[in-house]
């Protein structure tokens, strides 16, 4: 897909609205296709996953991040570099446990939901941005890091912020792998 050969310097941008609206249209369509919110969420997560598995190449090719030594470092890169690069935002990172393998990305603003005022009636369980979880999960997996990625909080569900939780499944010492998106 994204073969470095095709990358022109000054990585091309497209109109943000195009991206946001397209994603919106996609979710809306899925809501038409699937009655259960769970199914929509799953679909988005899977979709994100396969995007992530490809996006990571692009990311590694473009961001010359050096090897990471800790999960917190990785999460940091996801937040500061990856999110900035692809969504133009930098979420806040918090670590949630002592074993330092559970982290949260806290999104004060989220371009994906720019035009979404509220979840449509009867769709209270919909994770509108679930694509993101899939992307992160997929990307991490490509660098041999298994992780659970889920939404812990969601503005659309009435929470004050939107929070993505990342839980790395292997012990830190086991993983010798380097950088990743």
């Amino acid at each position: 897909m994204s073969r470095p050969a095709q990358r022109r310097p000054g990585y091309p941008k497209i109109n943000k609205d195009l991206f946001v609206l397209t994603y919106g249209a996609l979710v809306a369509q899925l809501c038409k296709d699937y009655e259960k919110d769970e199914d929509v969420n799953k679909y988005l997560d899977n979709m994100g996953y396969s995007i992530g598995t490809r996006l990571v190449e692009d990311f590694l090719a473009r961001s010359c991040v050096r090897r990471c030594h800790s999960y917190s470092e990785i999460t940091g890169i996801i937040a500061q570099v990856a999110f900035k690069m692809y969504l133009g935002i930098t979420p806040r990172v918090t670590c949630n446990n002592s074993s330092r393998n559970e982290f949260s990305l806290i999104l004060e603003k989220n371009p994906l939901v720019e035009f979404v005022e509220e979840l449509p009636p009867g769709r209270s369980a919909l994770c509108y941005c679930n694509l993101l979880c899939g992307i992160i999960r997929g990307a991490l997996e490509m660098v041999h890091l298994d992780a659970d990625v889920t939404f812990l909080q969601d503005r659309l569900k009435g929470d004050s912020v939107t929070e993505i939780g990342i839980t790395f499944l292997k012990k830190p010492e086991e993983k010798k792998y380097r950088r990743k998106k």
Partner: protein
Amino acid sequence: MADEALFLLLHNEMVSGVYKSAEQGEVENGRCITKLENMGFRVGQGLIERFTKDTARFKDELDIMKFICKDFWTTVFKKQIDNLRTNHQGIYVLQDNKFRLLTQMSAGKQYLEHASKYLAFTCGLIRGGLSNLGIKSIVTAEVSSMPASKVLPSLFPSSLIPEIEATQTGLIL
């Protein structure tokens, strides 16, 4: 500004996703195309609403088509349509020699039959935009078999004739 790579991947996933779900269920290709086309349509409606917010009222159809080729295309794909032609009978042919949603597809024969999948969304995009500007149209796209040169799309605002059947028009520069 969003990054292109992400959008391209999303678009590809939408296409393959629609076709995957098609395997379990509505098999006919047509339905999938329509689904993509509809999503594009909705996006087109939204985009055109935004992009025409500050422009003056359009004089006529040609005025609108020019807008689509210049401003609209530039804002969406960061480049102008390379060539616009019309028979002044309501048929317009827009040509993009480096269509973004196809450039990362490897050139060659085998992608040709897939091309339609990857154009459906954009056809919808244009149709949606036009319809929001009050022009009912049929938009079809075609890809010339020559590598790296894509033609997109022939479209038919039904201004003079209510509904014009789609004819494939491909030109290569």
